[in-house]
């Protein structure tokens, strides 16, 4: 595949759905998309463009809960990061674990540490926290201080 093609392809595919495009060429691309489109976009990047899924990061910011999906095009040395912003009062997003088995654990981790609900996750159990950890307490959120 030619150097720029995957990025151009992605831009064309998403079109107006891209809410924000940030880039640090030639290696890093960050694009914000509406949360309804994450499943389709992840499927396109992973299955059709053949990117490797690295991991998801959940970031708790004052305005919204951000979920970042990092994909690597290893042969082209590019990392494309998809961002979805979830409003704090409705932290829900479609799970990508049904199409990418490698996302199974990390979504369970984000769910329990940041309180994001992944809809249609195949195995929504806890991953890291103990069984007796109180419901509704999310240790990685900003309001939780380290000494609590």
């Amino acid at each position, binding site marked *: 595949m030619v150097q720029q093609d995957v990025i151009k392809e992605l831009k064309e595919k998403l079109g107006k759905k891209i809410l924000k495009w940030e880039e*640090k060429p030639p*290696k*890093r691309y*960050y694009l914000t998309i509406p949360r309804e489109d994450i499943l389709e976009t992840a499927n396109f990047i992973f299955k059709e463009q053949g990117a*490797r*899924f*690295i*991991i998801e*990061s959940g*970031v*708790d*910011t004052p305005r919204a809960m951000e979920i*970042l999906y*990092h994909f*690597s095009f*290893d*042969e082209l*040395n590019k*990392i494309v*990061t998809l961002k979805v912003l979830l409003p704090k009062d409705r932290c829900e997003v479609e799970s990508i674990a049904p199409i*990418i*088995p*490698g*996302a*199974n*654990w*990390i979504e369970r981790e984000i769910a329990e540490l940041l309180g994001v609900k992944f809809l249609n996750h195949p195995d929504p159990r*806890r*991953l*890291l*926290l*103990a069984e007796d950890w109180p419901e509704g307490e999310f*240790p*990685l959120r900003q309001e*939780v201080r*380290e000494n609590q």
Partner: protein
Amino acid sequence: MNRKTIIPIGPYHPLQEEPEFFELEVEGEKVIDINVHIGYNHRSIEKIAESKTFDQMVFLVERICGICSTSHPIANCNAVEDLAGIEIPERARYIRSIVGELERLHSHLLWAGLAGHFIGYNTLWMWIWKYREPILEIFEAVTGNRNHYAMMIPGGVRRDIKEEDIPFLSKGLDEAERKIDMVTKAVLDDPVLAARLKGVGILSREDAINYCAVGPTARASGIPIDVRRDDPYAAYDLVDWEVITQEEGDVFAKAVVRLLECFESIKIIRQCLKMLRTVKGEIAAKVKEIPPGEGIGRHEAPRGEVFHYVRSDGSNMPVRLKVRAPTYVNLPTCKATVPGESVADAAIILAAIDPCYCCTERIVTINKRTGQRELNGQDLLRLSRKKTEKICKNMGRRNV
């Protein structure tokens, strides 16, 4: 009648003494499903990082792992440098690669020794670990520590490699290369090892892609990914070396990848040492302020790609640090590799992805049907070794 039995292994990894908990569902000798539980040793390093400065964070992430203790600092520095757009001095690049590759050497030897131990090749274990020792001595001479070298800072490295240390380093490498060569030939030619490990725990290319496997686990399944080549950092694009891959995806292929990678590591270190004689100057760029923004850093650790994501708001502390260690994506591949194999093979397959080593060994096996019988870690090892002995006997060879 359904004779399904659940064998709990853990909460410590049976071979590598790590806090993980496996539930094997078995029918007779055959494993039909596996369930993994983790989280017994969660230290909330990502949370702690939010209250450390960028300089302190490097030393914090060094504590994530004791064996690949320089992997996380390199990935973290790469992330901070990506975020702030820092170029590190050339001499620092060579030193980073030297430390990274020495670490790969000792880590792969550690794994090879343990793998030998757990299939009952104790001689292999003893000898390999003996050959690993000089590499740790090199570390002590060069960095001051056998482990947790504390060599990396954003912008470069903390210690220079002195001109007078280079002969000692080269001599140690020559010695190590001869020994690793001997071991590799012995392993590749050994009919018992071939019978024991070939075709066992195969990870297909498709599964490796779907589970997003990295490092030797992916490379042994024919996926040629290596961050050192794909996203060059340190001095990896300045020296000549190869990415090792195998097609089979079984335990044997993973062992071959690791052993052959040792030679590539030695090759890289030699070239870097040679360059250190001519490339002089600073070993760290001055880093004043970290601007707001986000950065991604990667490093090819012995076990695969380490991924760090750092976000800054312009203060001296990160807003968020996300760490993805290679075992996090390699471990779930056991869902694809273990079912269908025998209980005696489960141990070595689980070890083949090379999770990190720490903690204490403790396994309890309870037969759910009777609730009576208890097996422990020793029994699992006994099963594994008995299988090797049987193969030796059938071949008319004496077990070593």
